[in-house]
């Protein structure tokens, strides 16, 4: 534990309600990659929905088979239980077959009172992907103009993009300097994940407060990379600390894979597209085995990580494909790895803790 305190981070629902009281709109955004700045240019605050864990999934199960992951199942149950009533619209980026299915279900069958906007993220590399995504963003912009009656100029949009890029810069600093911050694992992840719902101004203030909290001594524990989709359940983070490990870098889709560099163009949609597609390699974007391996090795090289914990969500196919190749490739570089599988609705099992403990003992 640390002898300081971060400012209190409000709950997602409080932030959403405050934004609406101030006259803005709220978008509930499903994982993973999306144009936050474009929404903000229309005064729409994005509140991300990663599950959430521990939802009563009874109603979600009436639409989805049990072999669909808990992120998707919980999101639908949360919506059906009224958890997203505060939102005006739902943005469903295309990340995998299950999220694709959820978008389709929402549009065709569930038909919530919200406006549902799907958004396709291209898997093609290079200019083709960027050109398509720029057009997709322009189409989304047109749709938002239609729905909100607002028409931000190119200049307004470019300004919004630049402001979000600056906030992304703060987020990147938090990740880069995490070892010297006086924050434990849970505090760190609460702080960086505040980017999922706080307006950039509030997030930047919070991030700067976090960056000001410096650790006087090094952190103990075996240095690890955490890879996967989302750092849930949070008990995993506590367990890593309690059992003698420490996370020095992450390759999580919710966190480290969204450290987007700024775009270069002066046309706002093109710039957004460049930025979104230039993030670290992500399985849901179809990154190659080699790119992912190179990235993990580079992370380990930069941070001194001695091993990787792959934290998988049950039934998350994109994350499962490369595990044999990644683990082999990491081992060749002297990095051991452990695969844990969780469901957002289940507590961390004794078996999982035992495996984590054995892994850390082996590395000690």
């Amino acid at each position, binding site marked *: 534990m640390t002898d300081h305190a971060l400012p209190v981070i409000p709950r997602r629902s409080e932030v959403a309600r405050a934004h609406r009281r101030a006259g803005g709109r709220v978008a509930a955004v499903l994982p993973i990659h999306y144009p936050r700045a474009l929404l903000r240019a229309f005064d729409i605050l994005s509140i991300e929905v990663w599950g959430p864990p521990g939802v009563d999934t009874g109603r979600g199960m009436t639409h989805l088979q049990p072999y669909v992951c808990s992120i998707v199942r919980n999101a639908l149950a949360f919506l059906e239980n009224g958890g997203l009533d505060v939102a005006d619209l739902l943005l469903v980026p295309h990340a995998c077959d299950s999220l694709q299915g959820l978008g389709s279900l929402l549009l065709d069958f569930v038909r919530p009172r919200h406006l549902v906007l799907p958004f*396709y993220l291209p*898997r093609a590399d290079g200019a083709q992907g960027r050109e398509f995504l720029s057009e997709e963003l322009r*189409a989304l912009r047109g749709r938002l103009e239609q729905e909100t009656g607002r028409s931000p100029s190119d200049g307004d949009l470019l300004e919004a993009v630049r402001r979000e890029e600056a906030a992304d810069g703060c987020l990147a600093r938090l990740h880069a300097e995490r070892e010297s911050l006086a924050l434990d694992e849970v505090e760190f992840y609460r702080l960086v994940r505040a980017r999922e719902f706080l307006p950039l101004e509030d997030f930047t203030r919070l991030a700067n407060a976090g960056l000001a909290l410096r650790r006087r001594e090094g952190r103990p524990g075996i240095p690890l990379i955490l890879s996967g989709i989302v750092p849930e359940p949070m008990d995993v983070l506590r367990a890593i600390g309690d059992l003698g490990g420490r996370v020095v870098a992450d390759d999580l889709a919710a966190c480290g894979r969204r450290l987007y560099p700024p775009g270069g163009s002066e046309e706002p949609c093109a710039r957004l597209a460049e930025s979104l597609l230039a993030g670290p390699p992500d399985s849901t974007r*179809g990154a190659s085995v080699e790119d992912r391996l190179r990235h993990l090795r580079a992370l380990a090289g930069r941070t001194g990580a001695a091993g990787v914990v792959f934290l998988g969500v049950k*039934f998350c196919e994109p994350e499962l*494909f*490369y595990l044999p190749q990644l683990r082999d490739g990491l081992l060749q570089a002297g990095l051991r790895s452990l695969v844990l599988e969780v469901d957002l609705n289940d507590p961390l099992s004794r078996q999982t803790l035992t495996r984590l403990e054995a892994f850390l003992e082996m590395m000690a």
Partner: protein
Amino acid sequence: MSPGLARLAGNAALRFGRQRAEARARRGADWRSDFLAPPLRLAPRGKELVARHWLEGRTLERGRKVAWVTSGAPAEVLKALGYFVVYPENHGAICGAARMAVDLCSRAEDAGYSRDLCSYVRTDLGTLRSGRTPVGRVPPPDLLLACTNICQTVLGWYRVLAHHFRVPLLLIDTPFLYNEDASQHAVAYVRRQIEQAVSVAERIAGESLDESRLRETGRLSRLASHLWMEIMRCNVHRPAPISVIDQFTHMAPVVEMRGDPATVDFYAAVLLEVQGRIASGTGAVHRERKRLLWDNLPIWYALRSVAERLGEHGIALAASTYTNAWGELADLIDPDEPFESMARTYLYPILNRGAGHKLATMRAMIETYALDGVILHSDRSCKPYSIGQLDQRDHLIRDLGTPALLLEADHNDARVYAEEQVAGRLDAFVEMLEV
């Protein structure tokens, strides 16, 4: 033995095997069912056609390039460039029907692949690791072509293959069509990717794409798809002359030999035989009383047992959204505008469209084929096909009054197939149909 000689000998053996199978079929030696009509007389020829394809793969001339492609990929360009084209999904299906898939899946799982991955993937990765396959040998690829219009699974799968074989992967990414038509920028995006894929494929093949050859491949592809659709449409007649089980068995050429003249010839012959069955009043099920729609991939290892259980009650599986998918887009193929039409055709498969579109397709098929009910195979290995089925079932029952049954299984992994449970659910469904 040289590849040419081996192929000659292999073809002779296949011809002999086919003739023997035809003779046995004429004597009714291999068929034991009180409820189902025997397979089509042309079944041995279909089997020979597919076997010849794999034989060709084992005996390729030196230097001929091999491409592995996904079932929804624009393979016409590769065919026109002279590639020998392999469909790992079809290979997976052959392994499933031959009941080898569980063993192969286990081999992949031993190597660290999760049981939650698609069972076609695990089957093929199992073959890759063990060399075991019912087709003798699968020629390794010089090139991979994956199109995301059937699922995102192929993206991970083909990346793994690219890593394993160290060969280029060409990706055709097709934006998913939720509940509207493809946007202009989506069509342009797909077209640009196909054009770029051609230039890479040309480089590897060492030759330029001959546009007249591409047009001819497109023409044959369209013709085969049309014939396939006509064969399926024969089931508007009562009794349905060709069961969905036969359709599953005979769909391999339209998937993996689209664009080949032999495929066109084969389907033309099948159409004649099926029309002959209509003329003679022969049904796929004796004393047909009810007709059902099958949704999703087949359960390859349980085709016969499901058909028998239904056939016993005079129930025919008369139509399938899955086999329909290989014919319904035939009109979109325009051999004179190959790139533009390929971009459109490959954006519109049922799996690249929303759950509401699938429901609309099912409704249309229920009407066209005068169907009495629907079996929705909830396929653990195919999320894009399966998500939405619970709502589709509810709508079919509520809006159309069409009985609908959700059947939990997996297309290739028999370990998740609970035979008794399936039998019980089928029996209850049959009762509901008031047969």
